[in-house]
């Protein structure tokens, strides 16, 4: 339009054309009698579904105006891994930008299309947003609603405006995928399945953390997860490891086999994939070659007190580490030839290689902890003698006896723990071509997947089958989803909902397992009490049977007189007080014999409690 435009002076009369408009209908709305409906994306007052809200506080953290404050609501009973904090909005500050909506991992916080509030009391401008689901009093149907009364306490129901959309969220719902050895390759050997994050991958994954710390509440040992994730993000695995060691001295082990209560609680997991906390811990542990120089931890001045730790499993290792740092002399006894306890013999090599265990154990030994391996209490050294010789004793013996189904001919079957142990640190087991594993838990998955590998190694080129049979159906199987998926990918067959009836033996050779259909696994009170449809039977062919239906503790090393003093809880766990002390004075306990979770990180949590208890007792406080 570069050509020169000529001025149009126009006529004085031309404006009179506008007179036409006198006869047109006015465009203005006669508000409020003619209401104007706000757009569907309108950014008005907040709505918050209190049932979905986890109290993570991300909305308060991102608010540019500090208009949101997290306030504890005592009436709310927080679900595990959640807080009973709820956001309180101050409409004197809110600018309705909606960043809080885009960061809300639960998607509970939304904006409505309401925008009226008139009140003489300024306090009414600060309020807890709720929605019609959780607040029926102030959200009204269209019959009761009147625009003349519209306020924060008189709002229209089902009036959602700007809502959260994962595609435009400020957090990344997708996890950086972990490189793995593919199922067809890994099932042929004991190669570690998880390859581990590279530095870049770990940094990218760590960058997803929103630092809401719900995970830290959920973690039994309360690791400072958000801090050590942040250190990884900042390219400082040494600092990360320091943070981990404050609460967990076995990161190389836990970084592989932790039951990750943190990831269940992770606020990203509500609508996306949880932060890979476990793999990041593993990354921190693996990227530091030498813990000692990185950690610079030194034991306190020697106290001269002697503590015996029975069992070098996760809880025994942890308490040895913590007590040594406090200056006590710790001796750890274990019947196995190396540290790790159950994690040394249980998790197969493809999940937890021996070197990963020894890395943690050797570091703890380097602090001055004395390990006496291949030493069985009650045989090589008597429990009474230890009780006399040491100032305090910690029992971290775990559940070492395998349970059996006690069906006909079951004595021909193998037990889970000896089977796993023999393959991990022993001479190995000869396996059949068609193996039946009884059980649906994580140990059963370990046994089945390990058995499959042995089959491929011992019968190369032949057709081999491993199948599991479990009382529980798919939805109630106690094994983690991850394990079940991995097992399926490797070709393990599942028979959920069947109970073993009899091991069929012909000519002193195992022919298979006769099974009956399960009616119910648990009774009305939720107790384990399986019932069967006796008429519905199935025969599973197989030449080898392994039972993996659970473990029990073995206290045979404690002399009878003392054992009588040891009290148990209703759940048949060793009873301990707030300091971790059992009913036998000076004897503390933790790990699988004490807690219900039966995992490493809870064992560490028990060890932390007992550390404080023992230290308090020994320092005379």
């Amino acid at each position: 339009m570069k050509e020169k435009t000529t001025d149009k002076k126009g006529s004085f009369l031309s404006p009179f054309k506008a007179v036409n408009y006198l006869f047109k209908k006015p465009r203005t709305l006669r508000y409020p009698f003619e209401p104007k409906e706000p757009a569907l994306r309108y950014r008005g007052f907040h709505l918050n579904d209190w049932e979905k809200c986890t109290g993570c506080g991300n909305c308060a953290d991102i608010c540019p105006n500090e208009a949101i404050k997290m306030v504890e609501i005592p009436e709310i009973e927080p679900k595990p891994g959640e807080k009973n904090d709820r956001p309180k909005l101050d409409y004197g500050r809110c600018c309705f930008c909606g960043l809080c909506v885009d960061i809300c991992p639960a998607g509970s916080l939304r904006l409505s299309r309401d925008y009226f509030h008139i009140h003489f009391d300024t306090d009414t401008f600060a309020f807890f947003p709720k929605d019609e689901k959780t607040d029926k009093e102030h959200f009204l149907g269209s019959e009761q609603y009147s625009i003349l009364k519209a306020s924060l306490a008189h709002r229209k129901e089902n009036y959602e405006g700007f809502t959260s959309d994962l595609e435009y969220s400020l957090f990344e719902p997708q996890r950086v995928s972990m490189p793995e050895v593919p199922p067809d390759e890994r099932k042929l050997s004991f190669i570690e399945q998880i390859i581990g994050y590279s530095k870049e991958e770990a940094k990218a994954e760590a960058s997803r953390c929103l630092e809401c710390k719900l995970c830290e509440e959920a973690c039994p040992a309360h690791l400072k997860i958000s801090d050590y994730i942040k250190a990884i993000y900042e390219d400082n695995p040494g600092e990360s490891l320091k943070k981990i060691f404050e609460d967990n001295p076995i990161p190389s082990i836990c970084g592989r086999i932790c039951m990750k209560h943190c990831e269940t609680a992770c606020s990203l997991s509500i609508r996306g994939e949880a932060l890979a906390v476990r793999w990041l811990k593993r990354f921190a542990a693996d990227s530091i070659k030498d813990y000692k120089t990185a950690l610079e931890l030194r034991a306190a001045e020697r106290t001269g007190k002697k503590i015996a730790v029975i069992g070098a499993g996760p809880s025994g290792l942890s308490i040895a580490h913590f007590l040594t740092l406090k200056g006590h002399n710790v001796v750890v006894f274990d019947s196995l030839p190396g540290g790790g306890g159950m994690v040394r013999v249980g998790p197969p090599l493809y999940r937890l290689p021996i070197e990963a265990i020894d890395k943690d154990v050797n570091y703890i030994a380097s602090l001055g902890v004395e390990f006496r391996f291949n030493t069985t209490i009650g045989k090589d050294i008597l429990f009474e003698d230890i009780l006399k010789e040491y100032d305090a004793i910690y029992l971290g013996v775990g559940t070492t006896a395998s349970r059996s189904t006690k069906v006909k001919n079951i004595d021909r079957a193998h037990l889970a723990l000896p089977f796993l142990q023999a393959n991990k640190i022993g001479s190995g087991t000869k396996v059949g071509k068609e193996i039946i594993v009884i059980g649906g838990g994580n140990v059963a998955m370990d046994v089945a997947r390990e058995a499959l590998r042995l089959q491929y190694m011992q019968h190369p080129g032949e057709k081999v089958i491993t199948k599991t049979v479990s009382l529980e159906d798919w939805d109630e199987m106690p094994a983690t989803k991850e394990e079940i998926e991995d097992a399926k990918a490797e070709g393990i067959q599942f028979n959920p909902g069947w109970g073993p009836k009899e091991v069929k033996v012909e000519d002193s050779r195992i022919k298979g397992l006769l099974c009956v259909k399960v009616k119910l696994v648990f009774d009305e009170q939720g107790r384990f009490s399986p019932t069967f449809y006796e008429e519905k039977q199935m025969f599973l062919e197989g030449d080898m049977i392994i039972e993996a239906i659970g473990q029990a503790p073995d206290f045979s090393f404690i002399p009878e007189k003392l054992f009588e003093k040891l009290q148990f809880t209703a759940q048949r766990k060793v009873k301990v007080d707030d300091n971790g002390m059992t009913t036998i004075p000076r004897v503390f306990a933790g790990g699988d014999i004490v807690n219900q979770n039966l995992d490493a990180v809870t064992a560490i949590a028990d060890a932390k409690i007992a550390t404080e208890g023992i230290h308090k007792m020994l320092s005379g406080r």
Partner: protein
Amino acid sequence: MNMNLSSKMSSSPRELELYFGPQHLGMVGNFSITLKVEGDRILEAQANPGYLHRGFEKLMEYRTWIQNFPMVCRINVVEPDSMEMVYAMAVEKLAQIEVPERAHFIRSIYLELARVASHLFGLWAYANMLGFDTVAQWAMYHRDLILDLFEELTGGRVYHIYIWPGGVRRDFPPGFKDKIVNTLHSIGGCVPDYDSTFFNNRLFYDRSKGIGQLTLEQAKQWGATGQTLRATGMPYDIRKIEPYAAYDKVDWDVPVREDGDAYSRVWVIRDEMIESVHMIFKLLDAMPEGPVYNRIPNPFKWKVPRGDVYVRCESSRGELGLYLVSDGGDKPYRVHFRTPSYPHGLIILEKLLENASIADVGNIMISLYVVAPEIDR
């Protein structure tokens, strides 16, 4: 109007000091001018900004990269959108964030809608100042129709908080393309009415022709951009010179006038609106499908690499620039905006008011399209 006889100050007993604004109907916002007048003639004018100083540039140093995004728009109340655009552009350049193709188109369409809305608001102010109340109300009504579009797209009518680093905040809602077309057609259908009642009106011509006249040389020297410069004959437009968003993807013209007076400036505004509407139609036709947002890093951990950047875009008032410095932290180290109203409202206004008549103060000021919050920041 506040009149103050300051006989001590003035050299001649006939001189008066006259405070124009900030509480004045003809004022463009919280802004004032001190006039030294003799009779009806202005001897000297001094612009007084500062009534709206909110310290945005400093505040932004205390907020994280994403927390600044809802704030930048507030610097210019009338057209917040180009503020969002420069901020997003600067951060994207520093942090090397790619923007999806469709987001570029949506940004351009959205910015052009904002330009039309802003020009209609300007037309309201100008017509209102001249006493053309009918035309002013039409312009306000048509602006509201565009605000309805914004409400539907972004959830906000005035502060849209829509263009963020990485793209735009949400894609078009279903049927939005048709709504834009229908709304623009209904506004475009009223152009003959606007022309006959206002632009081709003898009263408008007589009141604005030759008022606040600026030569090309003066305009260049005093830092004029936007309509003020284009009305002096220079086709200077950042959208052409340094195309951003999708401005280089379609054909369009830069409207220019030669005379440099209030009349030319208002005509440039009119022509620009029409050009913008044509451009929106072309952009809508050429707009590709696809994503509209590349996710930015986690806002709680986001650190923008060390560096500094100057970006500029063509706001409805002229060249809007942003100088942004990052020290590699989670917040900007320094932020500085170059806003078009700054030279227009402080330098050019003072110069043009010399020797003007008191009745033309509003005329000149509003034809320069000054927005006070842009000056103060």
